[in-house]
């Protein structure tokens, strides 16, 4: 049965041949152009990725200019530092950093625990009963700086002393940093700029008129110590240890809590409730939750975990011992924040120079001490006065003996802090000292008020739970039905089937999904900010109830600071973070490839 199609021969359905080919060519041309746009899109995405990596690498490596605060030749009358013997090196220390000798002894040759250091005799400290009998029974703080230097000369080796002199007296500082590209292609102009305007500026600022640039060299901001030192307010000395430990701790909490709950929910959804109302509700809800901005989870965590459940998340209901630190360890913990400035509270009458005050003020800024930020203008003198005022308030609020007095005064370019009541550290109680420290720096690190690793970890659990559930559901769904039927056929109950057949088969998939979501959690910043990650923390978190910081928080903090060198260490921290995530992702891929079961 044919259908007749009537064709009107008089009408032309096709254009003339020439016009047809012209149009066809034009159509194909348009196609090629649009393909070009597609290429452009893809390559722009690739380019953005490249630019991002390049930018990070460019900042994390580069050239730096170093300056000696005191030239070694001046210390030694022209002799090379390596030619000096122990006694001469120790004398240099005694001459320039007499106030810090005890700290140096404690850090190098002391044989006693840090907590006992202040109450130990000289003989105990050096661990040598045959030490000069005149000194053996004395407390270290009661002997003269020269005698202390003598101890150093006798018990420390020459290399250590030489390094001490370099670190404490010569005190190299980074005055400028340049990114990798400049360092490679423009080294001459970099050099000229460091030796010219930057050095001039440095001399004026630090009042070191004869400072010279010692060396301009290539520098990797990412180095071994970067991973092993804690936070510092001097970029060149800062590290990410606490942040790294914090991130790993968060990961641990997230996995331990989210994995069982997420897998449980997925099992329920896939194996138990197939078409019920609850099933639909949960599934829709999980998918909606996956689209909620992460900062909202942070706010949920702040209200629930940090505040409402504070007794639980701060460890109070477990009678968790907050490790109330002894005086010695407080100083140990606080001191790095002050960057070895002579205002280490314990020193008797410390003379602090302007640069140190600036550094201390800087530290205070990190802690967000209101009494300082209130006057937080750029005028150093003003800030120092604020600092003095803060110290005065701090000292005022400590119940100390009435006959002891304190004195904070301004002398020319120096600020002299005579903090007499706390000079005798052993004499004041731990409580008093803690009260003082809390007042002084408002750090409050000893009772984190629910702003703990646990709170943040649980917040991240809520954040990644939807992703884990969705992934686990898919993994469980991928287990073929015959496996289950075979199991039932052998008389297994439903739970036995799930536990012995389905879960083992789905495990690689579940693990892969979990690792990927944890890798996302590691990079999350916003919720951690909201639940109150510490912005400046020099102590490592020791338990789920500790204050914490994390890598992304550290990157954010450093990025937000204006000084150039913080951008460098932020880049270095980014490399650490990306490496951590890469490791996790690689683990997920290996897991998927090696253990996944093909049915």
């Amino acid at each position, binding site marked *: 049965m044919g259908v007749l199609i009537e064709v009107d021969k008089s009408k032309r359905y096709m254009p003339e041949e020439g016009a047809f080919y012209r149009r066809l060519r034009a*159509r194909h041309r*348009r*196609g090629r152009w*649009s*393909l070009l746009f*597609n*290429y452009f*899109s*893809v390559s722009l*995405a690739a380019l*953005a*990725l490249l*630019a*991002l990596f390049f*930018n*990070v690498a460019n900042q994390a490596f580069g050239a730096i200019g170093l300056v000696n605060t005191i030239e070694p030749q001046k210390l030694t009358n022209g002799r090379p530092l390596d030619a000096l013997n122990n006694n001469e090196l120790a004398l240099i220390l005694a001459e320039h950093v007499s106030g810090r000798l005890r700290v140096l002894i404690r850090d190098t040759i002391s044989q006693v625990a840090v907590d006992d250091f202040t109450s130990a005799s000289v003989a105990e400290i050096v661990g040598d009963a045959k030490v000069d009998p005149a000194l053996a029974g004395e407390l270290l703080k009661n002997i003269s700086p020269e005698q202390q230097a003598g101890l150093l000369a006798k018990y420390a080796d020459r290399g250590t002393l030489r390094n001490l002199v370099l670190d404490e007296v010569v005190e190299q500082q980074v005055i400028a940093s340049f990114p990798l590209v400049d360092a490679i292609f423009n080294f001459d102009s970099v050099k000229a700029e460091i030796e010219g305007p930057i050095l001039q500026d440095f001399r004026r600022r630090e009042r070191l008129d004869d400072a010279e640039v010692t060396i301009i060299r290539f520098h990797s901001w990412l180095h071994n110590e970067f991973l092993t030192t804690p936070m510092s307010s001097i970029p060149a000395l800062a590290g990410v240890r606490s942040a790294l430990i914090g991130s790993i701790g968060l990961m641990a909490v997230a996995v331990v809590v989210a994995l*069982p*709950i997420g897998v449980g*929910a997925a099992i*329920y959804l896939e194996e*138990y409730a197939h078409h019920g109302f*609850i099933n639909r509700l949960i599934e829709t*809800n999980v998918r*909606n*939750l996956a*689209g*909620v*901005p*992460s*900062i*909202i989870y*942070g*706010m*949920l965590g702040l*209200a*629930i975990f940090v505040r409402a459940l504070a007794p639980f998340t701060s460890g109070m209901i477990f009678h968790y011992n907050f490790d109330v630190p002894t005086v010695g360890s407080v100083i140990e913990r606080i001191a790095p924040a002050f960057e070895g400035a002579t205002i280490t509270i314990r020193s008797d009458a410390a003379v602090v120079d302007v640069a140190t005050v600036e550094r201390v003020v800087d530290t205070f800024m990190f802690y*967000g001490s*209101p009494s300082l930020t209130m006057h937080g203008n750029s005028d150093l003198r003003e800030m120092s006065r604020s600092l003095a005022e803060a110290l005065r308030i701090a000292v005022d609020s400590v119940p100390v003996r009435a006959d002891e007095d304190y004195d904070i005064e301004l002398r020319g370019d120096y600020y002299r802090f005579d903090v007499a009541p706390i000079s005798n550290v052993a004499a004041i109680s731990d409580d008093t000292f803690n009260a003082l420290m809390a007042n002084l720096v408002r750090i409050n690190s000893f009772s984190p008020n629910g702003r703990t690793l646990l709170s943040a970890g649980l917040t991240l659990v*809520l954040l990644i*739970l939807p992703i884990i*559930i969705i992934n686990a559901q898919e993994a469980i769904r991928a287990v073929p039905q015959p496996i289950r039927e075979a199991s039932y056929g052998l*008389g297994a109950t439903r*739970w036995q089937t799930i536990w012995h057949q389905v879960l083992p088969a789905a495990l690689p998939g579940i693990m892969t999904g979990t690792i990927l979501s944890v*890798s996302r959690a*590691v*990079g*999350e*910043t*916003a919720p951690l900010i*909201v639940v*109150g990650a510490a*912005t400046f923390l020099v102590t490592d978190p020791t338990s789920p109830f500790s204050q914490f910081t994390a890598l*992304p928080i550290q990157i*954010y903090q450093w*990025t937000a600071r204006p000084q150039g060198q913080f*951008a460098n260490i932020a*880049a270095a921290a*980014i490399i650490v*973070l*990306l490496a951590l995530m890469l490791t996790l992702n690689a683990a997920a891929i290996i897991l998927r490839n090696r253990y996944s079961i093909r049915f």
Partner: protein
Amino acid sequence: MSEPENPDLTLHLVQRKSRSLNLKHRVKWHEVVIQMSLLACGLLSIFTTIGIILVLGNESISFFTRDQWVNSNRAILSDMDESATEFTVEPGKALDAITVGGTIRVGQEVMEIVEFHNNRFELDVLGTSGGFRSWCATDAQLAEVGRARPLIVNASRPIQQAEIDSCAAVGISPLAFRVGTDALAIVASADNDFISGLTFAELQRIFSGAARWSDIRAGFPDDPITLVIPGEDSGTFDFFVNEVLDGDAAALLATEPIRSENDNQLVGSIKRDRYSIGFFGYAYYAKNREDLRIIALDGVAPTAATVKDGSYALARPLFIYSDAGLMRDHAQLKDFISFYLSHVKDVIVDVGYFAASPEVMAQARNKWIRATGAVEIPTIDPAAVNGELTAAGSSTVFPLTERIAEAFVEAGYLPRLRVKRGLRGGNTIAPHSAGVALEYNDRPTIIEFFTHTNWIPAIGEFGVIPLINATLMTSAIAMLVALPLGLGAAIYLSEYASPRVRKTLKPLLEILAGIPTVVYGYFALTFMTPLLRAVFGVDVVNIYNTGSAGIVVGILIIPLISSMSEDALHAVPNALREASYGLGATKLETVIKVVVPAALSGILAAFIVAVSRAIGETMIVAIAAGAGPNFSFSPFDSAETMTGHIARISGGDLSYDSIDYNSIFAIGLTLFVLTFMLNVMSRVIINRFREIY
């Protein structure tokens, strides 16, 4: 398997089997427990959603109901004991913030306002004609100039017929109350030592165009005459023109005299110029006797006697005007006029005018009695009078009315509040002594939250628009970047790329998607911003700007759009493409006209999810877009987004018991609702408009 040889064993097995079949009917408690705990895991996600809504909602409610006490710059005027429910506050300008039903705080005690009378007296000087004009203006005219109809008109001349007519048009029948007599004083500066008296004719010459003093009388200095006169709207001017110049002011105005409605300015002008001469109400002369020199007219100087017996030529009556209807509608007006009529005789001489004769005053009181229908003039207790009073008009009568008003206020006509005591708890009721500041509650309202364009928590300004604006700016820029690029990449990957290329490119996009956003923030600040500044100029582009943040957010969501869109494109069956090719379409035509429309619902859903992601993105904008809300449409300005603000505020030393803390939850709720709606919308689009093949 061979048959079991032992029949007992077989039997045993059968028995066992039957038992194990029965197993099905046994309640398997551990299985139930397991199932329940698994269900609990599933329900946790629902609790999370409920938790988010509860937390955000609860804190937002606290935000909108939290008391924000603001000092009203007013204090209570007299002591209050525990039982007092009515009290007065210091007089002054409007207390707009205090409304009936609102709450106030006195000391630490919170009270609810049951009744509020903002008793105050507003006096305007508009000149007599001006006063009548605004009194008898239509409501529309009044609205145009933004003025309320005065209740009383101060007049230094009787109302004219034209004014009576225009008053009748708005239903006002003017009622004049004579309150005293003024003598128009002709004055010169105290420095003027050549005039002691003038004749009426000389006065006419001076004020009708004479240029020099020597023209007036031989012996006067040959210096120009400076004329200082009240403005044309004043009753004084009208009176002078009528009495002295026979109603013709043209010649006077042609000399361009110094004019002012404010008599104090006139006094100043005359005082400073030795050759000036002017006129105004006697009261102003009386107040400035040292600076001025009064000029006798035809040998008669104005005094109580000469004014009263009519021998001084320029004496004139003073009135206040009101209306019986207005007095009925405004009890306070009736009371005030009665008070005025009873007390004017005590103060008028002190103000500098002359009392009207007792007969005239009695007439005025009779008018009041007739207008109100009362039997006699009552004794008014101003402490019981409530309602605003307004008067406008003559500057001559002004000091008199002002003095009466002061006496009225002094006798107790003050802003008055009736309150419910001890609103919170009830045990906070305490006596308060005079002088305690009155604070009113200025809690942010939802309307203010969504309409105001300032977000300054320090001064209680909570308008979320600048934050939303910045969020929309960055999101729009992000979509401008991500939309074409993401779709282009998706089309390429799905339609053009060979499997091998796809295998390399997809992980690349996944890496892009997996990088933490804080790293993107760093990228925006240290790479994109310097790039923008290099291109557009350092002066144009701020260090922190929404443009840079938006572009990088766009880069962040390219993988999201491309992967979701690619899935959608991939799901289009090949038969469609083949049919298109079969009709002779090129590849581009197939993609644009067949594949993309077929996958449109998926692509649309991808866009919506991407928008939601861009709106919720925090770290990039927190680092690169700037700190500090700013209502700006320029992509080169810094502006803080909703998420950026939450991050910054909560990152600081946040006190839980502060409006700042509550405010971030209000922002968070806005953000949550916004993104949640977008996510639901994308779901609906996928489900409803998906083409199924």
